[in-house]
C-alpha cells in the first residue's frame, strides 16, 4: 500500500510520520537514535526503501547511519565523512546535509558538513570520501570566511543540488561562503554570487563570503532560487546574476528567513517562511504571527498563507531543512518548528493544521512516497 512518510529529524532523534489515507490522518514511529541529534534524514528516491541519516550524539563524533528497510534496521557507515589528516587540519563537527545522487548514479550520495566540507559516497552512504576539488582547494578557508566567521552552531555546507539534466553539474550553498557551482562533478568550483547582497562584508560586490540559508534548484527546468541572509533571490541565467525577488514582499514582512520550498512541477511557484531579521535577528515570525508566503509567478508577487496557524503569540523558528513539499497533486507542504510541532497543508498552503506536537526541537523535515 502506498504511503506518504515525513521524516522528522530532531535534536533528540528521528521520527517518522506516515499517512495512508491521502494525508487525512497521520501515525508516528520512533524515535530512532533516541537522544542523538539528527540533522537530516532522507529517503533514497531511486529505491524508495533506503534512508540515510546524519546523526551525532552530543558527546561523540559525527556519523551517518543507513537503513535499507525504511528504518526497521540501521547500520552505521563504515567510514563517515572526515577531512584529510594534516597539520592544523579541520575535523567534521557534524554532518549537516544529505543529497542523493542522480537516477543514473545508483548508490551515490553527497553530504555537506560543519565546518564547510563536501563529501561523496558511491555505496549508499557506507564509505565517504572528501570532494578534493573543494575540501582541498587552496582558497577554501578564504571562501568560507576564515576560521572565526561562523554561526553559533558552526559554518555549514548545505543545499547540495544536482542538475537533473546533467549530474556532473552541481551547486551548493554555504553559510558562510555563498553559492558555488561545479560543471565537472566537483573537480573544480566557482563562486556564483553576483547580484546577491552581503551587507556584513565590506565589499558590496564581493565574489564570495555570502550567507546562503537555503538554495533550491527546480528538478525539471533548473531554475534556481535562494533564501539568503540578505533576502530572497532568483537566478537570472540570461544576465548571470541573482535578482532580489524578495523586494516584492510586503515591506512590513521583509524577505529574511531560512527555508525555501519549490513546487515539484511548476518552476514559478515557491514558498518561504519569513522571520524577523531586525535588531539582534530574533529569527521568529514577524510580530509573533507565523505565516508562509507563496509566489506563483517566480517571485513577482507574494501572497500570505496562514489560515489555521496561530493568529498571534506564535514564536517558533523554522530551520532551513525543516520545510518541504510532497510530490502529490495538490502539493502538500510541511514545516517543523523549534518547539517540536509539525504543521502541514494538503492544499498548497490554503489551510494549515498541526499534525504533530510535543516532539523535540526539529532540525529537518523530508517527505517520500513509499510502498
Amino acid at each position: 500500500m502506498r504511503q506518504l512518510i515525513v521524516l522528522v529529524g530532531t535534536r533528540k532523534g528521528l521520527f517518522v510520520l506516515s499517512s495512508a489515507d491521502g494525508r487525512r490522518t497521520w501515525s508516528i514511529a520512533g524515535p530512532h537514535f533516541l537522544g542523538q541529534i539528527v540533522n537530516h534524514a532522507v529517503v533514497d528516491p531511486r529505491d524508495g526503501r533506503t534512508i540515510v541519516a546524519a546523526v551525532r550524539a552530543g558527546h561523540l563524533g559525527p556519523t551517518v547511519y543507513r537503513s535499507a528497510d525504511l528504518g526497521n534496521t540501521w547500520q552505521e557507515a563504515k567510514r563517515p565523512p572526515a577531512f584529510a589528516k594534516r597539520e592544523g587540519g579541520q575535523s567534521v563537527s557534524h554532518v549537516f546535509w544529505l543529497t542523493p545522487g542522480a537516477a543514473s548514479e545508483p548508490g551515490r550520495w553527497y553530504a555537506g558538513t560543519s565546518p564547510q566540507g563536501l563529501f561523496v559516497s558511491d555505496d549508499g552512504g557506507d564509505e565517504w570520501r572528501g570532494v578534493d576539488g573543494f575540501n582541498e582547494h587552496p582558497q577554501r578557508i578564504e571562501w568560507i570566511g576564515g576560521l572565526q566567521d561562523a554561526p553559533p552552531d558552526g559554518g555549514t555546507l548545505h543545499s547540495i543540488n544536482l542538475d537533473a539534466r546533467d549530474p556532473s553539474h552541481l551547486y551548493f550553498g554555504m553559510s558562510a561562503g555563498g553559492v558555488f557551482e561545479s560543471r565537472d562533478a566537483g573537480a573544480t568550483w566557482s563562486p556564483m554570487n553576483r547580484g546577491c547582497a552581503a551587507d556584513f562584508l565590506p565589499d558590496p560586490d564581493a565574489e564570495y563570503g555570502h550567507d546562503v540559508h537555503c538554495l533550491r534548484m527546480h528538478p525539471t527546468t533548473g531554475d534556481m532560487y535562494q533564501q539568503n541572509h540578505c533576502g530572497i533571490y532568483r537566478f537570472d541565467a540570461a544576465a548571470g546574476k541573482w535578482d532580489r525577488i524578495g523586494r516584492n514582499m510586503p515591506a512590513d514582512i521583509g524577505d529574511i528567513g531560512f527555508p525555501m520550498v519549490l513546487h515539484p512541477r511548476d518552476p514559478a511557484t515557491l514558498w518561504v517562511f519569513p522571520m524577523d531579521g531586525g535588531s539582534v535577528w530574533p529569527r521568529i515570525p514577524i510580530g509573533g504571527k507565523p505565516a508562509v508566503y507563496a509566489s506563483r509567478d517566480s517571485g513577482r508577487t507574494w501572497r500570505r498563507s496562514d489560515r489555521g496557524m496561530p493568529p498571534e503569540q506564535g514564536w517558533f523558528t523554522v530551520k532551513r531543512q525543516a520545510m518541504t513539499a510532497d510530490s502529490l497533486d495538490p502539493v502538500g507542504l510541511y514545516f517543523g518548528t523549534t518547539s517540536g510541532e509539525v504543521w502541514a497543508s494538503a492544499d498548497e498552503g490554503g489551510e494549515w493544521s498541526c499534525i504533530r506536537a510535543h516532539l523535540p526541537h526539529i532540525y529537518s523535515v523530508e517527505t517520500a512516497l513509499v510502498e
Partner: protein
Amino acid sequence: MKVLLPTPLAEYTANRRETEAHGETLDEALRDLDRRHPGIRFRIVDEQDAIRPHIKIFVNRMQAASVAHRLGPFDELLIVAALSGG
C-alpha cells in the same frame, strides 16, 4: 589492558562497559579497540587524532592529553563522556 567505557559507547561493545585493548601508546590501544569494536575510535578521536572535546581518557586515573600517551601492559584505561549540554 582493561578498558572501561561510558554508556554512549556501549552500542559498539554489545552493551559491555568493560573490554580489552592492547598497545604501547594510547593511539595503538584505540586502534586495537577499533579492530575489536569497529567504528568506536572515530567517536572518541577525530580525523586529526585529537581526543574529542567532550571525551576524557584517564590512564590509571591520570588524564591523557593526547593519543601519543605511552602505556604499560598493566595500565587501565577509563574513557569518560563528559556530561554537558541539554
